[in-house]
């Protein structure tokens, strides 16, 4: 019997890829947060925490990708083939991930085995971190068959989300390490919320384009706004991931509440919200990606 098809979402990539996109973003963002904090020389707690976080997060994400492979997991030797076709975004990404993992391990964990940290390696790793964040977006962005993904805004959105979730992860772990790091975290607060605000602008643009695009584009848009993924979109992403952090940023800068809200617990809570939002963003983009219709 023929299968009835109107618009359908892609069903090829699922949770492992979503979690990878999220973790790679957080890892890259954590490194950038760390690097930003050391530009002027000294290594504060945030810089140390960010460097410790970056490599394991990206490594876990990359491992998930390997486990998600078919034959590549059964015959591990085949994985080296992933380096051989750098015209493919995924092959290029394999190079970027490999180089980032090597650089971030040396740069982040070298001092533990008395390898001195060198400034230029930090800069190189930061560039690679940007590449990792961009790559997660371009991997999807080059797929013409899925109009929701096929826009230059997607890499921009993923890079911004990588920065906001990376900062959130570093804030959370720094404050977990000790309340005395509050000052360091607060000095970053403005930048953090600025990134979240920019993210909202780009997300709105992306949705606006989807809402006015092809049939598949509109289908993806409707799935998020008023369909299968509406609860996750509105509650998970818009309210929890973007709205509440903005509300918190406003309230915590309001005079009577400053002393109460600028506390480690509140900042840690806000960080969790941003991380949850970042995860749902990846989930929605991957899952709501509708395939271009064969007949208009």
């Amino acid at each position, binding site marked *: 019997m*023929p299968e009835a098809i109107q618009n359908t979402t892609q069903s090829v990539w699922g949770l492992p890829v979503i979690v990878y996109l999220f973790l790679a973003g957080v890892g890259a963002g954590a490194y950038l947060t760390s690097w930003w904090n050391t530009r002027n020389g000294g290594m504060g707690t945030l810089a140390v925490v960010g460097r410790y976080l970056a490599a394991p997060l990206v490594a876990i994400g990359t491992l998930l990708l390997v486990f998600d*492979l*078919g034959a590549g997991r059964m015959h591990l030797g085949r994985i080296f083939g*992933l380096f051989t*076709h750098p015209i*493919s975004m995924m*092959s290029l990404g394999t190079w970027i991930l490999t180089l980032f993992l090597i650089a971030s391990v040396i740069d982040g964990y070298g001092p533990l085995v008395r390898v001195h940290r060198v400034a230029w390696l930090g800069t190189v790793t930061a560039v690679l971190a940007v590449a990792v964040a961009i790559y997660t977006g371009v991997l999807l962005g080059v797929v013409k*068959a899925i109009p929701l993904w096929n826009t230059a805004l997607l890499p921009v959105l993923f890079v911004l989300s990588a920065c906001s979730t990376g900062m959130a992860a570093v804030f959370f772990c720094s404050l977990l390490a000790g309340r005395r790091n509050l000052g360091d975290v607060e000095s970053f607060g403005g930048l953090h919320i600025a990134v979240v605000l920019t993210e909202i602008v780009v997300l709105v643009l992306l949705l606006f384009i989807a809402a006015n695009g092809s049939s598949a584009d509109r289908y993806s848009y409707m799935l998020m706004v008023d369909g299968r993924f509406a609860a996750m979109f509105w509650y998970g992403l818009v309210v929890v991931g973007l709205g509440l952090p903005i509300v918190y940023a406003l309230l915590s800068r309001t005079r009577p509440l400053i002393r109460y809200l600028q506390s480690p617990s509140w900042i840690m809570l806000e960080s969790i919200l941003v991380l949850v939002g970042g995860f749902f963003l990846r989930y929605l983009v991957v899952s709501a990606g509708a395939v271009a219709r064969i007949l208009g």
Partner: protein
Amino acid sequence: MAHYGMLVDLTMCAQCSGCTVACETLYGRPPGESGVHLRSYERGAFPSVKRITLPVQCMQCQNPPCVEVCPTGATYQDKATGTVQIDQSRCVGCRYCMTACPYGARQFDPTSGVVIKCTFCIQRVADGKDPACVQTCIGHARTFGDLNDPTSDVSVAIAERHAIRLNPELGTQPSVYYVF
């Protein structure tokens, strides 16, 4: 240099799924892993809606998005036949090609962990036979041949019957044509 192509004339298609079964039988694949799938689409809006059943398979694109995205180079374009083939010994099963294919023409085989698709029965063609789906089609809806040869049955039929290709806007340049 040949450039093999196919014409599927839907006005002669009985929607019997013979092509799907012939493919499964020839390659010993379980149901659902055939290289040809029948899909049903609605065209138009109420009150002038038409339901179309479309046999979909690998379009053997001349500008194939799957080849571009394949990270190992396992999917390649065979210059001698103008077809898209998969070297299964190099496929890692990342399924990037499946997201990139606008026609949903590729399947993942969980047993071998590689991606499979219609090969245009390139072995049979080399032996001078038609692909299995063409040979089995009871309505003679399918015509196969060399698109580079303007006198071949398929080239003549495409020109005469004003055949079209799917999703021209994506620039994939399929080698499979349809008559609606």
